[in-house]
């Protein structure tokens, strides 16, 4: 689709510009849908949690409440951004930007199907891990520069929690790397070809569960949302923020949720592959479904889990969070990396006999 456009552009533009323009168009084509998904994820969250708690949820703005996220965005845009006195002004304003930046930049290496990927780099998995580890800076900077003790307590909690769960997350990714034999996300999906049982969720089951739970902890979502425990520290690191600066934190949080869900689908649930691959009639009946639809369906499943967790579990106590991360997840991941190493060495079918 992009090749004719590039041909046409290079007809009347000097050389580096067509390439840059094409890349910019691709970035917009990724970021806009992500932000749209973020807006409607907030709506879905309020509706789903509403129904789980036997309420209706937002239903006033537009038909059945469908315009609610737009109304929210307009309201936040129109609000004043308040700078607290004695706040570190520049850092206070950089905080939300630093939070949102990595959350969007990580989408550069996500393959939506075999051909649609912005940057097909060979160290994609490492890039993702590095960028998700940067998200904590926004929280740290925001919490410290607000000059508020609640915000400060929250950013301390957030940084300790993120670092702890990053280790388990990294080990889970090492397992994926060993199983797929590549750091490139497209290659990782290719390694899972061949239907539901060939995906990595089965041989990497403990790592799959640990990766997703660590992802919930990394995004500071319930039940790991001690960084914004309303009952203890008012609202957390964003307590002093208002208007669009406040909204940016939420954009980042939901963009990170979508990112973690997409990554889990790509690394453990076969990415864009159909679950019915190699199942005869079922495979033929669903052959018309584009790969991207499967990826979106898998992502939507994990996003629903995020909301379901929030409606179901009470918040973890802080020491329990640390115990779960350090004493349970990290040992399990280390043991399972050895198991996976053995499986790859002995070429256990049907995953590692290629």
């Amino acid at each position, binding site marked *: 689709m992009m090749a004719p456009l590039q041909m046409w552009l290079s007809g009347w533009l000097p050389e580096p510009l067509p390439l840059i323009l094409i890349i910019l168009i691709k970035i917009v084509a990724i970021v806009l849908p992500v932000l749209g998904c973020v807006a409607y994820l907030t709506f879905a969250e309020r509706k789903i949690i509403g129904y789980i708690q036997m309420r209706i949820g937002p239903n006033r703005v537009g038909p059945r409440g469908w315009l609610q996220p737009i109304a929210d965005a307009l309201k936040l845009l129109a609000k004043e951004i308040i700078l607290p006195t004695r706040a570190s002004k520049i850092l206070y304003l950089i905080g939300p930007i630093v939070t949102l930046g990595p959350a969007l930049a990580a989408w550069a290496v996500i393959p939506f199907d075999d051909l649609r990927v912005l940057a097909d780099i060979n160290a994609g998995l490492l890039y993702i891990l590095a960028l998700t580890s940067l998200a904590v800076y926004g929280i740290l900077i925001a919490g410290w520069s607000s000059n508020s003790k609640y915000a400060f307590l929250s950013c301390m909690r957030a*940084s300790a929690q993120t*670092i702890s769960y990053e280790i388990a997350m990294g080990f889970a990714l090492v397992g994926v790397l060993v199983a797929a034999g590549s750091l490139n996300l497209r290659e990782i999906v290719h390694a899972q070809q061949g239907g539901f049982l060939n995906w990595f969720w089965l041989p990497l089951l403990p790592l799959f569960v640990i990766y997703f739970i660590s992802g919930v902890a990394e995004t500071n979502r319930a039940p790991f949302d001690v960084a914004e425990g309303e009952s203890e520290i008012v609202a957390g690191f964003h307590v002093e923020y208002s208007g669009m600066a406040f909204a940016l934190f939420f954009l980042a949080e939901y963009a990170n949720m979508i990112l973690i869900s997409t990554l889990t689908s790509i690394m453990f649930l076969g990415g864009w592959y159909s679950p019915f691959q190699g199942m005869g009639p079922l495979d033929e009946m669903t052959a018309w479904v584009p790969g991207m639809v499967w990826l979106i369906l898998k992502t939507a499943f994990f996003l629903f889990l995020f909301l379901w967790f929030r409606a179901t579990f009470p918040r973890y106590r802080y020491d329990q969070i640390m115990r779960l991360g350090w004493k349970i997840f990290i040992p399990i991941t280390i043991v399972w990396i050895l198991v996976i190493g053995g499986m790859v060495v002995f070429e256990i079918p049907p995953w590692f006999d290629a």
Partner: protein
Amino acid sequence: MTETGTMGLPYDLIIFYLFASIVVCASGMVIVARNPVHAVLFLVLTFFACAGLWILLEAEFLAITLVLVYVGAVMVLFLFVIMMLDINLAVMKEGFVRYLGIGTVIAVAMLGLMTAVLGPEHFGIDQVPAPARHGPDYSNTEALGRVLYTDYVYAFEIAAVILLVAIIAAILLGLRKPRNRKLQDAGTQAMVRKEDRLRIVKMDAEKGGHS
């Protein structure tokens, strides 16, 4: 080595100078910044720009690991500690004039030493050849892994053992004996059942009028 576009612009040189100037400015600010938290954040920026320079050298594994380990973990812990310190800048500046003389001597000695060791006769542009450019199939991660697990496997394993010893030592230093502390046993907490602590009392509904 410089690739030039059709417009004649050496793109990698432009990117190099961009990142290099960020590195120089930010590392200068690390020393100059008054607030220690700002200094740490400038150090983070320095690391980040260094990673950009390493990517230009096609060392993407090292570059991303620099961001992952130093920026993502080590510096977060640094910030964690420094943000909790209650630093009184006035006290820190006390005795600046008193120690100025000896400070200058040490600084000049360090500068001389570094010039001698890192000077152009050892690390000049004519001493170190430009790294060869590789094709798009070249994987720095794979190349590094091959060298690390064959030629340098002993050095690698010795480093790993030293790190393990350091971890154990750090944990042991941080470990406090349970004095008179009431510790929770998470295992028994999780094993608890409703019958262990809850007694349901059946009572007849009381009859009679409202009190």
